[in-house]
Every structure is written in C-alpha cells, then in structure tokens.
C-alpha cells in the first residue's frame, strides 16, 4: 500500500518528505491539502496533525508528522532500498544529527522568517516588515559563511557522503533562488554553490520538481 503524504507539493515541508521517499524507493500518493482555503486548520484535518500543519504521512495505521521526523524514519526503515543517508559509525551519525540541527535552527529559522514576511503575510493582506527581512538576510549571510568554511573542507555537510543533513536544505535553498533576490547568497559562495549544484542535481530532487508542474 502506498504511503499517503498530506500536503501541497508546492510547500517546502512536504517537499522535504517527498524527496526522501523518492531517494528511499517508497511508493507514495500525495493527498492535496489547500493551504489557501485553510484546509489544514479544519476540524477534519486536526486529528491527522494536531498543530494544523503539513505534512503528515499515513503508512497503513502508522501516522507521523514533522517533516524531519518523517525523513529520519524512512531513511532508517527503508535502509535496504536506498542510499545510506544517515551515516554508519556513531560519530558519522552524530555529525549528521548535528548538521540537521543546524539546518533546522540556524538556517531554517531565517528561511521561515523570509517566507512569512514575503509570501504568507502579503497573501493574508498584511504588510511586509522589511527591517525584519533585512535582519533575516544578514543572519543568513553569517550562517552561510560558516557553511562556506565547512564545505570548503568537506564534500557534504556531515562528511564525504550525501545525507539527510544536506537533503533537508533542498526546499529552503530553492526558495532563496527563485525570484526573491537572494540568489547571490548561494551563487557568490564557491563551495556552497558547488554543493548546491550537486545536491539539487540528484535525480530524486528533479523528480520532486517534476511533481510540482
């Protein structure tokens, strides 16, 4: 039975899950949730995800939410059917966790702030706080300096191999590069830019982009 993924394919958090499912050879079916009409906040949806957010997955009777938890679960559960995205030794796994936390907090907090100010609030008829936008961009600049240093010494964030720590950045960096004027943050950093070209060139990510069309 195919795993059901609830969420619009155009939203970042569902995309994080979809790319993992494709990498790990998991059959899935996307159940569209219309965020603009507030489907995710309706009483029918809340039993699935009590915070009223996407994505949530249903695998038979087993249900999970929080995109990074879902990614960890399938990377582990389907380990025989896909690449090793988690590391092998304890130390490798620890570095994967470390850089996933960095994505989750140092990187994604800024992306979330930018998406809120530049996409969500205008759609709700509210105004953008451009001072906050600048603050997020300045913080992102500092964070990406650390990434540049790391990636100049290490092919991927956690080491020599592509892992979920790299993968989880795919939607956020795509947002920076698509018409918001932040592309230079990535393009002007040599090691970050090569790393981006590598991870976004993977067939699994290209397949997710196809789904969005």
């Amino acid at each position, binding site marked *: 039975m195919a795993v059901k993924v609830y969420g619009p394919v155009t939203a970042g958090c569902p995309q994080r899950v979809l790319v993992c499912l494709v990498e790990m050879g998991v059959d899935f079916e996307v159940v569209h949730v219309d965020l603009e009409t507030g489907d995710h906040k309706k009483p029918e949806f809340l039993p699935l995800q009590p*915070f009223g957010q996407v994505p949530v997955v249903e695998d038979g009777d087993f249900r*999970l939410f929080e995109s*990074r*938890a879902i990614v960890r679960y399938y990377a*582990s559960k389907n380990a025989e059917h896909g690449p090793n995205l988690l590391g092998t030794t304890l130390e490798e*796994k620890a570095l994967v*966790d*470390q850089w996933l*936390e960095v994505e989750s907090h140092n990187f994604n907090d800024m992306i979330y702030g930018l998406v809120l100010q530049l996409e969500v609030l205008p759609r709700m008829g509210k105004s953008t706080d451009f001072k906050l936008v600048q603050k997020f961009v300045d913080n992102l600049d500092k964070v990406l300096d*650390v990434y540049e240093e790391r990636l100049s010494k290490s092919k991927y964030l956690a080491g020599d191999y592509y892992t979920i720590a790299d993968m989880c950045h795919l939607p956020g960096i795509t947002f920076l590069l698509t018409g918001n004027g932040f592309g230079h943050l990535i393009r002007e950093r040599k090691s970050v830019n090569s790393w981006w070209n590598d991870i976004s060139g993977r067939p699994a990510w290209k397949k997710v982009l196809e789904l969005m069309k």
Partner: protein
Amino acid sequence: MAIKVHGSVFSPAVLRVFACLNEKDLESEYVEINMRAGEHKKESFLALNPFGQVPGFEDGDLKLFESRAINQYIAQAYAAKGNQQLTFVQDAKKMGPVYVWMEVEAQKFDPPSSKLVFELAIKPLLGMNTDDAAVAEHEGKLGEVLDVYEARLGQSKYLAGDCFTLADLNHLPAINYLMGTTARKVFDALPHVSAWCADILARPAWAKVLALQKQHPS
C-alpha cells in the same frame, strides 16, 4: 576526562546536555565559558562551535555542537549505560513517535518558550528590562502549543508513549525556568501538562543538573 561540556550553566541548551549525561550516569567535565565577556565568539571557542553558540561538546577526539544532536549521540554511544529507554534507534517503529515529539519540542515549543525564558529569566540576570508586550504575545503562542500537549498527555503518559524519552527530556531546561516566572500560569491551567511537568522535573537526573547550577553562581 573524555567528556567535556563547554558553556554556561545558565544556558538552557547546556542544561539540556547535562540532563542527558545524568540520565546515562556519565561523568563529564564542565568547562565554563564566560558569555558576558563574549568568550563564545572568540577563536578558541569557535573551533568547537563555528556558530559561536553554547554548548560545545567533546568526547575524546569527537567534537560536536547542537544540544539536541549531542543528546542523540550520548543516548546511542552509551546505549548500555544508565537509562536505556531514552531512544529506541534499533526499532524504527518505536522510534517514530520519539522523533515526532523531539521535532515538536524543537519546532513548536522552543520558539515561544525560549523567547519567554529570555524575557523573564535571562534579561533580569543581565540587568535588562522585560518587554511585557512580547511576553504576552509569546505566552499566547505557548498556550496554543500546550493545548495540543494537553490532548496528547491525556492519552499518553509521556509524549512519545509509556516511558520518559529524549522527547520529554529536551523540554526540561525551559520548563524549569518558566516555572519560576509568571509564565507558569500557562502550564498551571492545563492539568495533564502540569502533571507531566511535575513528573519530569522531579527526576533525580534533573535535580543533579540544578545542583551543578548552584555550584556556579552567576
């Protein structure tokens, strides 16, 4: 000593790591970083955490940062020591809910609670004024998140199931701080959440963390 934790005993992230070390009955050395003097932004510390944030962690030659990653490492590296039910990495299905609620702590609980900890607990320590409007805003957001916890804890003794796991532990520093402030009313209003807070705060491993804090007054 092989395990070293670099940071300040007032940092919630540092306390999060000590809570885990104590659950696992592990000895460690606390290396104090003078954050008021900006020591965490200096070269010597940046070698441990290039983002200039505490804690920095060492276990022999292995260096790690990010408290939640450190805790996962500790739980797995020392799987056979102390509390053996903090994670279930050998069992993907049992681990699933632990991952979910660890993410919930990090993504939903932490944003409003860490801002409240800063306004109500840290700012006073630094002689700064609390922003009452910010407090009201974040208490509101925290309340919405805790409503979901209330429903969950009405069906499950701990967040991920029947036993205390990292998913519960990671909350300890913020809950401990907020129980000493006016924000405690947000927790007190919810019976299952209150009971769960009282339960996890009463753990001996957490008492040991508070004792360490007392040994290093600000």
